[in-house]
């Protein structure tokens, strides 16, 4: 009975989706909004990567809200798992003894890879305005490095206090940069408060590299805190 119901639901959704695919017409030109973004972002903002221009200037307020969501999730996961962590902390020695040590391959691999992952994350964050990359992606790469370290060593402790301090500082600086845009340029988080520089250069596109770094640090810290909450 239940199985028949599931098949019915999936088949009905399949029919809806099939009609969607059949009716879908691939566009041959950009929509007017997208076209103006593609034209305006390189010209007005000086950012070769249009997507970064959208994320960090035209819709930077969205990005700010999203970072707030990430912060709330880090706090929420801490709230849900906090009590059980406290119980575990009362017997830390037992946890370390019962936890299975990771193999030597993982340990050595983590030691070699962790600095490389950090450099790669910095590269992705700093090149967000010139090529593929940006704050979110680089932050996720940082968090993956932290995850590797946590997996490799049971004794590795993430410094939660340092992470939350760094994260709060990055968040405050992000908002302050936005307010600076309000004063020195056209509006909140406007990147033209700094000179745009040469198109495609490392230091160009106004405040976008600064916002990118702050976003990357903030996302990396938040995801690292979330990862640390899940450790046994």
């Amino acid at each position: 009975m239940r199985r028949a119901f599931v098949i019915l639901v999936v088949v009905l959704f399949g029919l809806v989706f099939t009609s969607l695919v059949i009716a879908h017409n691939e566009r041959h030109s950009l929509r007017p909004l997208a076209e103006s973004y593609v034209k305006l972002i390189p010209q007005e903002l000086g950012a070769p990567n249009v997507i970064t221009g959208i994320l960090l200037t035209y819709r930077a307020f969205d990005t700010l809200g999203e970072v707030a969501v990430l912060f709330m999730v880090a706090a929420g996961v801490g709230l849900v798992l906090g009590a059980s962590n406290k119980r575990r902390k009362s017997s830390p020695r037992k946890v370390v003894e019962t936890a299975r040590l990771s193999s030597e391959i993982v340990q050595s691999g983590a030691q070699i890879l962790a600095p490389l992952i950090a450099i790669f994350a910095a590269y992705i964050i700093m090149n967000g305005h010139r090529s593929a990359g940006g704050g979110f992606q680089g932050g996720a790469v940082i968090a993956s490095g932290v995850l590797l370290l946590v997996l490799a060593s049971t004794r590795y402790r993430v410094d939660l206090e340092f992470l939350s301090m760094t994260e709060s500082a990055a968040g405050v600086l992000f908002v302050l940069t936005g307010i600076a845009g309000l004063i020195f340029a056209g509006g909140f988080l406007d990147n033209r408060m700094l000179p745009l520089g040469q198109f495609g250069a490392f230091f160009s596109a106004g405040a976008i590299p600064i916002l990118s770094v702050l976003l990357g640090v903030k996302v990396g810290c938040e995801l690292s805190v979330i990862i640390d909450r899940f450790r046994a």
Partner: protein
Amino acid sequence: MMSNVVLATGLVLILIGLWGMLTHRNILRIIIAFSLIGTGTHIVIVAIGYVTNGTAPIIDRALTLLEAPARAVDPIPSALVVTAIVIGLAVTAVMLAYAIRLYESKKTLSIDAFTESKW
């Protein structure tokens, strides 16, 4: 043509996730199915933004400023998906945290054991 294939892939992924959510009884499998639905949605959004013979909207030697409006794909769906991926990760983290608490309360991950919130 190409975006139709990508669109169909994303929608099939959504269907697989839906099927997995409705048939499996283990909470972890339900969370995995939920992530599949999310990934499928991301693929669908990106497929909608494709323009015939388009390329990534990054201005460089391969895509000059003048030909960009004619050859770039729609950047808005891509920007939305970047944010959606991060939010998807956050939602998954919260679901996993609840899964841990549910396991601690009943020592099982089967949703058949959690009948209190069933109507």
